[in-house]
C-alpha cells in the first residue's frame, strides 16, 4: 500500500521530464525533420531568452507573487539594448543587468514595503515599462545599423554547432540554480512562498528576500531583453507583449505551484523547452493557424494538470 503510493507520487514528480520527452517523440514520429540539426539549432536560439525570462520570473512565483510586467520589462530592455548596442558594444549586456536589477528593485520595494499585492503593483508598473519602450521607439522596431549587424552576430553564431546564445542560457540556468539551492536568500525565497509569517518569525528578513526575488527576476528579464535585441538585431518595443504569459505558462508546465513555496528553475527551463517545442512542432506541421490557439489552449490545460502536484484533498487553489 505504502510503496504503491510512493511510486505514484514519484511519477508525478518526473512528469515534467516525461512530458518533454513525449512531446519530442510525438513530433519526431509525425515529422522526422523535427530533430534535424537546423531545427534543433533553431530551438536552442528560440528558447534561450525565454529561459532567462521564465527562470527569473520563477523566483517571484516561488515567493507566491507574480510579475505581470515581466514581458513589458523585456520590451523596454530590448529597446534600450537595440538602440544603444552600437554605442556601448557588448558592454550593453552588463549595463542591462544593472538596469533590470534596478527596475526589479522598484517593483520589489513597492510590494515588500508598501505591502501592495504584486498582482496590482506589476499590473501598474508594466504600463511604465511599456511607456519606456514606446517612447524610445515611437515608430516601431528599429533595426540595428546594417553596418553593426556583423558585430553582434556572434550571439547567434555557432560554436561546435551550438548557438552561443544557448551557452548564455546554460550559464544562467547554472547560476540561478546555484542561487536557488546554495544561497540563503535563494532558499529563503521558497520559505517565504511556503509560509511568510513563519519565515519572518524564524528570523529571516522577508522583505529583503521578496525584494531579492524581484531584483533577480528584473536582471533576468533585462538580460532576456538584451538577448532578444541581439537575436532580432533590432529594438522591438512590442517583443514582450506575449512573453509574460508564455513565461508563466512555462513555469506552470514545469510543475511549479502558482501558490509559491516549491518548484525549481530546472523545471522551468524544461517547461520552456516543452512549450517552445510544441509551438515549433505545430508550425512545422503547417497546422492551420485557425486551429493553433485552440490546440495550444487544450495542451496547456492537460499538461499543467498532469504536471502539477497540487492534487491533495485539502489544498486550497485560487
Amino acid at each position, binding site marked *: 500500500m505504502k510503496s504503491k503510493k510512493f511510486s505514484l507520487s514519484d511519477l508525478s514528480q518526473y512528469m515534467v521530464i516525461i512530458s518533454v520527452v513525449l512531446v519530442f517523440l510525438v513530433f519526431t514520429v509525425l515529422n522526422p525533420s523535427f530533430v534535424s540539426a537546423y531545427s534543433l539549432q533553431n530551438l536552442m536560439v528560440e528558447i534561450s531568452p525565454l529561459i532567462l525570462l521564465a527562470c527569473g520570473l520563477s523566483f517571484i512565483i516561488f515567493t*507566491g507573487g507574480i510579475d505581470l510586467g515581466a514581458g513589458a520589462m523585456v520590451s523596454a530592455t530590448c529597446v534600450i539594448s537595440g538602440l544603444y548596442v552600437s554605442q556601448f558594444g557588448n558592454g550593453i549586456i552588463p549595463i542591462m543587468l544593472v538596469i533590470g536589477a534596478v527596475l526589479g528593485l522598484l517593483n520589489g520595494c513597492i*510590494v515588500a514595503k508598501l*505591502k501592495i499585492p504584486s*498582482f496590482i503593483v506589476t499590473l501598474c508598473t508594466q*504600463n511604465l515599462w511599456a511607456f519606456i519602450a514606446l517612447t524610445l521607439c515611437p515608430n516601431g522596431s528599429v533595426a540595428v545599423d546594417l553596418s553593426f549587424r556583423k558585430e553582434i552576430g556572434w550571439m547567434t553564431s555557432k560554436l561546435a554547432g551550438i548557438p552561443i546564445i544557448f551557452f548564455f542560457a546554460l550559464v544562467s540556468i547554472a547560476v540561478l540554480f546555484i542561487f536557488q539551492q546554495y544561497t540563503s536568500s535563494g532558499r529563503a525565497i521558497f520559505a517565504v512562498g511556503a509560509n511568510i509569517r513563519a519565515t519572518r518569525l524564524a528570523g529571516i528578513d522577508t522583505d529583503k528576500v521578496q525584494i531579492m526575488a524581484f531584483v533577480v527576476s528584473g536582471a533576468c528579464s533585462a538580460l532576456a531583453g538584451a538577448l532578444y535585441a541581439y537575436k532580432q538585431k533590432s529594438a522591438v518595443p512590442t517583443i514582450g507583449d506575449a512573453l509574460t504569459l508564455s513565461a508563466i505558462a512555462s513555469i506552470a508546465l514545469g510543475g511549479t505551484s502558482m501558490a509559491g513555496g516549491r518548484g525549481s528553475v530546472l523545471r522551468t527551463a524544461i517547461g520552456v523547452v516543452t512549450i517552445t517545442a510544441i509551438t515549433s512542432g505545430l508550425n512545422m506541421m503547417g497546422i492551420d493557424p*485557425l486551429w*493553433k490557439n*485552440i490546440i495550444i489552449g487544450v495542451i496547456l490545460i492537460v499538461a499543467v494538470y498532469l504536471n502539477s502536484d497540487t492534487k491533495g484533498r485539502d489544498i486550497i487553489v485560487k
Partner: protein
Amino acid sequence: MNNKRRGLLETLTVGQQFVARAEDNARMDKIRRYAPLILLVIMTAIGGISQKNFFSWANIVNIMFQMSIPLVISVGLSYVLLLGSIDLSIEGNMGFAGSLVAFLVINNSNSNNFGIFGIIVVILIGVAVGALVGFLHTKAKIASFIVTYAMGCIMTGAAILIYRGTPIQVKDPMFVTISQGRLFGIPYITLISFAVFIIGAIIMNYTAFGRAVFAIGDNEAAAASTGINITRTKIKVFALCGCTAAIAGVLQCMRLKLGQSDLGLNQMFPVVTAIVLGGGSVSGGKGGALQSFVGVLIYTELANWLTLMGVDTNVKKVIQGIIIIIAVTLTVEHNRKTVVK
C-alpha cells in the same frame, strides 16, 4: 491618533486602552470603506472644474455609454475576485460571443436570422464555457489563472474559426435599434448594462449563493465547515462570469455591428483595476457589486477626463497606473500581520 489623545489615554488601564484602540481601528476602517466614494467625488470635481463640457448632458451620456460594457464585465468578475480567483478568459469569451452572435443574426456573410434566440444561445454557451472553467479549476485543482488563460486562448481560436478571417458585419435592424436607441436620452445599451448590474447586485446581496461567495473568499475553511458546497459555488461563479462576458461580447458586437475575435481585447484588466479602485481586493473576500459600480464609474470618468484633456494614450496608462498604486496604498490595511504576495 494624535499625541495629546495618546497622553490622555496613557492614564487608562490596559483594558480601557484596548477598547480605545479598537474604536480607532473601527474609525479608520470606516474611512477606508468610504475612500472610493470620496475618490469618485474628487474625480468628478476635478473633471467638472477643468473641463467645461464635463457636465454637459452629452458627456454624461458618453460616460454612461462608455461604462456600460466594463460594468457588465465587472458584474461577473466581481464574483470571481471575491473568491480570490481571476478569470483571464473574459476577453476570449467576449470575442467568441460577439463573433458567434454576429454569425447568428442577420449579417453580410450568411442567411442566418435567429434574432433574439441567437443572443440567448450565445449567452448560454458563455455560461457553459464558464461552468467548464469552474469545473476544471475546482475538480482538477488547476489555478484559475492557468485554466482561464488557456480557455481564453481556446475561445479566441474558436471565434476566429467562426468567421475565418473576414469579420462579419451585422445587418440586423434589432442591433441597430439597440445600439442607437435611447430612452429618456439614455442609450439602450446603458440601460441593458444597468439591468445586468442590478440583477448581479441582487444575486450578490439577496441570495444564499451570494453570501456563500463572500464567505468562501473571506475564509474558505470556515465556510466549508458551515456546510457550504465550495465546489458548486465556485463553478456557479465562473459560469456567471462566463455569462456576463458573453453578454458583454454581445453588447460590444451591437455597439460595433461587427463580429470579430478582438472585440474583447484589452477589456479585462481595466475592469480588474476598476474593481480594486472601488475597494475590492484581488485576494478575495472584499468588495461587492456596488463597490464595483463605483470603481467602474471612477475609472470611466478618469479615462474620459484624460481624453477630454487630450492626454496621449501611453501617458494615460502610466497616469492610471500611478493613481491605482496610490489608491490601493491608501485603502489597503497595513498591519504587521498582513501577508502580501
